């Protein structure tokens, strides 16, 4: 059970706590996180890169006053990096230090020599934790199958030690950039929420929240400009994270508004590919700046 120190009775309460953690969720995301807690089910957050999937899990941990345990997935991720590993150097030293024949196998493969990796850490914790399984689509399918087992029973079996059961079910957030479809069985285990790019108003609010003291006009223009970029055919369209980075840069330069010149100088913090930067240069850029200034004028 989630016998959390912090509990939320309504979506509004959770939303307020997330806002207090400097995260501005939309209603859909708040509902997803709320239901995940209420139904004790993992939630799968999917969406383009940079829409704040990972940040959502961090904010949830802050809101719950819980520890965040993060498992970053990658191709080839295996049990020794995700669950546990034995501390071989220490084991070897232990055998050598002891008198010959006095070390038993039970002693050698005991809790003392166990290195806990994120999944075991989350299952075996006696405090409230948020387990973030980041970019699950990058792990290979064998690992996904293993994860399914863990998330079904919230228990992990270590051959030498036996089965370890979760004393309290952790809040689990999975994220995926959808480089591949996940297995249906895993999806059945989880609630699903798709995070799109935020509306212009929300993005302006996010920028103002994350870049304290930024001029209102600049925040609006930056958000509108990035929104314009997302409409272009780019290799990697900028996410909210890029808007924030860029707004930081613009504010640091002491700008009140954007113009073609400053955009040109700072484009590298919004676009991360050379071809994208080249594609946006010149006329496109001037046009986008004009458009953004017009949009920002209207939205405020």
């Amino acid at each position, binding site marked *: 059970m989630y016998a959390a120190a912090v509990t939320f009775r*309504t*979506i509004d309460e959770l939303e307020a706590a997330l806002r207090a953690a400097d995260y501005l969720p939309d*209603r*859909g995301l708040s*509902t*997803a996180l*709320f*239901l995940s807690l*209420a*139904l004790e*089910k993992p*939630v*799968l957050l*999917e969406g383009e890169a940079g829409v704040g999937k990972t940040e959502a899990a961090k904010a949830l941990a802050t809101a719950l006053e819980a520890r965040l345990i993060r498992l970053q997935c990658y*191709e*080839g*991720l*295996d049990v020794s990096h995700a669950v546990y590993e*034995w501390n*071989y150097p220490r*084991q*070897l030293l232990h*055998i*050598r230090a002891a008198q*010959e*024949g006095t*070390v*038993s*196998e039970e002693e*050698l493969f005991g809790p003392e020599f166990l290195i806990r990796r994120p999944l075991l850490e989350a299952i075996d914790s006696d405090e409230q934790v948020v387990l973030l399984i980041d970019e699950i689509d990058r792990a*290979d*399918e*064998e690992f996904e199958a293993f994860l399914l087992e863990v998330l079904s029973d919230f228990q992990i079996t270590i051959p030498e030690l036996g089965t370890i059961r979760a004393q309290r079910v952790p809040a689990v957030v999975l994220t995926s*950039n*959808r*480089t*591949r*479809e996940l297995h*249906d069985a895993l*999806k*059945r285990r*989880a*609630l*699903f*929420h*798709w995070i799109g790019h935020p509306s212009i108003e929300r993005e302006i609010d996010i920028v103002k929240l994350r870049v304290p003291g930024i001029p209102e006009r600049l925040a609006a223009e930056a958000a509108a400009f990035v929104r314009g970029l997302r409409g272009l*055919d780019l*290799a*990697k*369209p900028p996410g909210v994270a890029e808007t924030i980075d860029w707004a930081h840069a613009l504010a640091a330069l002491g700008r009140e508004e954007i113009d073609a010149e400053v955009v040109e100088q700072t484009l590298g913090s919004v676009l991360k590919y050379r*071809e994208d930067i080249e594609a946006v240069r010149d006329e496109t850029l001037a046009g986008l700046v004009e458009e953004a200034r017009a949009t920002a004028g209207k939205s405020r």
Partner: protein
Amino acid sequence: MQGTAIVRHVVTFGRVLREAGIEVGPGRIVDAVHGLGAVDLTRQEDVYFALRQTLVSRHDELELFDRAFTAWFLRGPIAPVVRQRQERRFASSVVRDTLESAKDGDEVEVAGDPRELGASEHELLREKDFAEMTPEEFERVRALMEAIVRTRPRRTSRRRSPDPRGDVLDMRRMLRRCLRSGGDPVDQPWKSRKEVPRKLVVLCDVSGSMDAYARALLLFLHALVGTGHGVEAFAFGTRLRRLTGDLATRDPEAAIARATEAAVDWGSGTRIGSALQEFNVTYGRRALSRGAVVVVVSDGWERDDPGLIGREMAKLARAAYAVVWVNPLKGNPEYQPLAGGMRAALPFVDRFLAGHNLRSLEELAAVLAGIERRHAA
């Protein structure tokens, strides 16, 4: 709303979604009921998200869900939800009819050898060469496809397993043996990295000029997708269409029926460049092609600007481990890659192969099995 009323509503709505083609199991219905129990039912937005997040698990089902939700809960004046199953039945009967008619008539011969014809002439004929294969050949192609699938290009996994000729010590096993020797590693158990199939992405041209090969190629795609692991299949003509889902059935005929239905631009012109662009934008961005072997199956007849093919092939080649282009026209000894699109693509292709008959598909299988990256990263 009463508790039982909610349950009834959700169960019926689940049925509506199933009709629309969204897979809704009983577990999801239970989740939806629990979800509604946890939110404020007077807030439409919360009801919407609670149902969506419990009943839908795929991004491409969201639109379908939205329409069903509007129709069911809001009784909105919207287009009725599409009943995919009925259409599918229709499509598969079309295929069956085509197969039947092909069996007892030789009129397909009139189409001539499409290799001798240009894209436009062949398109005029519009004879679907689906029928050129007899059932025996059909079976043989299937068997061959399975062989191709078994010899998929491989990459080294990070996972290790016991192997006496391995390259890394298996510490866990060694320590256990050390217990007996007082800490001396007398014998050393080794382990090594396993080889696992490399990702394979197939982009198959199903436009008019490729008609004659469409059926064989779809069988090819079906067998590839059938292995399940890391295979993605796409069809393109004027547009790109992901086929992985449509081909994920055991029965090739049903799979072809679904794919035929899905590739709506079946038998129309080709926009290779824009199809590649769509692939790069939609799927390449999500790293689908990163580290993959990408096989493009097309004759290279482009309607539009061949320059776009060059640019998009460059992007594709950069992300991919290797790019193979299969052009059925290459089976003709007199063939020269003169088509503008083909010429633009070739600089970015690691292997250029024919795919016009079984023997050439065997060759393709051999190349895929031993493929090495040739182009610079």
